[in-house]
């Protein structure tokens, strides 16, 4: 029997789970990651992970979790996989618990659950306010164990450059660059699973980590992998604005009773804690009495925009509102929210146990991503799989809080065995692929590096281009979208693309040259930015996170469909395909009342 080879790119929750599953199926996995996998962006997830374990006597069920997720995503998600995820979630929590995650406990020693946005049930298991960190570490430890048993080989400090695709259009492995030596090598594999996360860097400042550039997804897109629903970008309502990044203040703050408000008197100069209760405007509680502060993120974000920009009732001197947990007893805060309160304290210098926090929405998550099928996490290119934030299933037009961790792990659980099955069933394994297929890809990638390193006439700075791209994308392609502004954004992106061709690398060394790597990522980001913007321009409706004041309603007759972008002879082409709504009937999404 032949021994198939499987590569996993990306070491966050989805990639680690896929790796564990591949190893468990007796196939040796090679795991590639830019950073040591323990430093992957999943570490930033704070609030928790959803599973309808119904441990609070509320009558919760996996069907209700499914319904909340589809409704929260404004019916754009294909339903069968979402149902599968919600049904698998309780067992996923049990698995994580068995792996030793330090989830918060009830007095009886059971898992504790809290509320999150877009649901009326206590459905979110949590480990303080650093749940993503705890889950990442648990999976990292399992992979380290597999590594010690020689079932996994890690390539940390390597960045993915491209897929190696043979003349039949079948993926046969990857090319990657060592970030220390800058050496480019190809690695053969029967199947490759991508778990390369989000694309926050396209928006400049977001809540994402530095590595979340979307570069791998864009590289694959340019090689023929479809990209779906790119226009659906989640803007989180509560983050600390910052120049280097926006730091997330988890929805769990509201899940534990935190309240969002502004002074009733615009321009009120008093400090937050000095403003009496009767002079505070709790706008979410007033506008959405049933869900209150726990409306879904797109709803809360638009409400904050309305208060700040339309009603001019933001905090004096800066676009911000209060997120207030100061009424909650300090010992409760320390047990359940310490991780995020510490971030606020360290980066702002104010103790949120005593004073309300100043927050504002920030780009947070992409619902869109690589197109994968409705069963196996398989992309349209044979041998290429995707799981986690980098693919588009599970969240439709808006993701519910605490559903990302479960979708990452579920996607990884499916992708691993699916890739193994595919590899076993291949008629011609990668061992029969001619060496020339790998060599031509290596040369193509080396030529890109050489061209960048040898261009001495360049005048453009990569950081400056990145900043301008981030500014225009944040301004025009996040919370509120107007077609005229989207058109202008496309013009700006083309201008930046021209300037990119005149880039000055400033560092031409061949050792740990971070600029070279960043410039390659930037080139890919510019392409993906265009995919996102074109999708937003085309979709003339309002659905979930995609809000167009010129088209203020959901339009199921024309737009109940998945956007599918492909790259044809250097041009981005949009197609549309139907959404699988076979399980739940469509209904209006409205959080002012119970659904």
């Amino acid at each position, binding site marked *: 029997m032949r021994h198939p080879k499987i590569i996993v790119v990306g070491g966050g929750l989805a990639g680690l789970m896929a790796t564990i599953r591949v190893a468990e199926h007796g196939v040796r996995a090679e795991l590639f990651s830019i950073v040591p996998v323990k430093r992957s962006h999943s570490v930033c997830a704070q609030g928790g992970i959803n599973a309808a374990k119904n441990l609070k006597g509320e009558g919760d069920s996996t069907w209700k979790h499914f319904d909340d997720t589809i409704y929260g995503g404004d019916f754009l998600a294909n339903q069968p996989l979402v149902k599968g995820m919600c049904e698998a979630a309780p067992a996923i929590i049990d698995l994580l618990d068995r792996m030793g995650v330090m989830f918060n406990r009830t007095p*009886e020693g059971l898992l504790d659950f809290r509320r999150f946005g877009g649901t009326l049930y206590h459905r979110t298991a949590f480990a303080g306010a650093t749940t993503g960190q705890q889950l990442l570490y648990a999976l990292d430890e399992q992979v380290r164990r597999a590594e010690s048993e020689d079932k996994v080989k890690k390539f940390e400090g390597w960045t993915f450059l491209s897929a190696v695709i043979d003349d039949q259009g079948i993926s046969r492995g990857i090319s990657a660059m060592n970030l220390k030596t800058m050496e480019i090598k190809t690695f053969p594999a029967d199947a490759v699973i991508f778990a390369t996360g989000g694309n926050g860097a396209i928006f400049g400042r977001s809540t994402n980590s530095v590595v979340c550039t979307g570069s791998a997804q864009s590289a694959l897109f340019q090689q023929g992998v479809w990209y779906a629903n790119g226009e659906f970008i989640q803007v989180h309502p509560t983050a600390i604005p910052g120049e280097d990044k926006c730091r997330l203040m988890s929805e769990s703050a509201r899940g534990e009773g935190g309240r969002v408000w502004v002074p009733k008197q615009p321009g009120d100069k008093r400090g937050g804690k000095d403003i009496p209760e009767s002079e505070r405007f709790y706008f979410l509680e007033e506008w959405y009495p049933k869900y209150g502060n726990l409306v879904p993120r797109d709803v809360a974000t638009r409400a904050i925009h309305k208060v700040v920009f339309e009603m001019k009732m933001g905090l004096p001197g800066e676009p911000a509102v209060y997120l207030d947990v100061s009424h909650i007893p300090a010992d409760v805060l320390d047990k359940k929210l310490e991780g995020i309160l510490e971030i606020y304290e360290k980066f702002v210098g104010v103790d949120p146990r005593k004073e309300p926090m100043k927050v504002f929405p920030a780009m947070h998550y992409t619902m869109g991503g690589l197109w994968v099928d409705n069963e196996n996490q398989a992309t349209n290119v044979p041998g290429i799989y995707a799981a986690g934030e980098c693919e588009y299933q599970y969240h439709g037009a808006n993701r519910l809080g605490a559903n990302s961790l479960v979708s990452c792990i579920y996607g990884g659980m499916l992708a691993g065995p699916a890739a193994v099955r595919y590899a076993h069933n291949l008629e011609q394994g990668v061992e029969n692929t001619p060496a020339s297929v790998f060599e031509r890809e290596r040369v193509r990638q080396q030529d890109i590096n050489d061209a960048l390193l040898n261009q001495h006439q360049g005048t453009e700075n990569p950081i400056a281009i990145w900043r301008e791209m981030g500014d225009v994308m944040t301004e025009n392609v996040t919370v509120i979208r107007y077609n005229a502004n989207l058109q202008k954004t496309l013009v700006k992106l083309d201008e930046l693309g021209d300037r990119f061709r005149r880039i000055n690398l400033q560092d031409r060394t061949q050792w740990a040259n971070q600029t070279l790597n960043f410039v390659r990522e930037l080139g890919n980001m510019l392409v993906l930015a265009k995919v996102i913007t074109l999708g937003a321009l085309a979709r003339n409706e309002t659905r979930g996170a995609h809000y167009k004041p010129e088209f203020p309603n959901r339009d199921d007759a024309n737009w109940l469909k998945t956007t599918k972008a492909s790259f044809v002879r250097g041009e981005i082409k949009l197609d549309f395909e139907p959404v699988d709504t076979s399980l739940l009937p469509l209904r209006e999404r409205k959080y002012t009342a119970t659904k």
Partner: protein
Amino acid sequence: MADTQAGSTFIVRIKRQQRPDEAVRWEEYELRYRPHMNVIQCLRDIAEKPYTREGKESTPVSYDANCLEEVCGACAMLINGEPRQACSALVDNLAKPIRLEPLTKFPLVRDLVVDRDFMFESLKRTKCWIPIDGTYALGEGPRMSPAIQEVGYPLSRCITCGNCLEICPRVNEHSHFVGAAIVSQVRLFNLHPTGAMHAAGRLEALMGPGGIEDCDNAQNCVKICPKGIPLTESLAAVNGQVIVHAIKNWFQGHD
């Protein structure tokens, strides 16, 4: 501070080294102050305009960074001589000129980048994981009292930054002490109901050279830990476990 008003400038001095085998040089950059700036923003400003204070063209500084909210552990470096995370080092709170150097207890890669593989290898050697039977559905995990969770959770927040190794006098060219972070992880896995079944293997990995005996109780680690992990408690607890384990071994060896 008077030197950091909006519109003013300040100086950052950086220890540069292109490769491990090349000469060290110090460079100074003059940066424009903005409120809430951190050291990461300083390094990005330099990347956008890599010209030293004297106007000499240089290269962007190589450094590790990822989450920028002090939870991934990547951006540890010496800032004004103290090992800490660059993201949470706010310009407002730092004496000027700000001095940046790489950690010294790990092999240098370039500029401010070092190789902390030693820590991940140590986690492997000390078997810091729960050996589950498989990922298939095997029902719920063991029950755990909130009291145990409240001890374990703070330990599980270790970000493997390496600051506790950097500050430890026993991590040096002559000793390969695994460091407080790893010992604290052993404590974490040994207190978990399933992990406790395999405590012996972890304790044995901490006996002998580089193990717990190398700790000389300087207690610098607990003061420097950015996550406030009670590292000295962990060192004491694991030291106790190792002694008990050694005595048991001795008796079993003399049956």
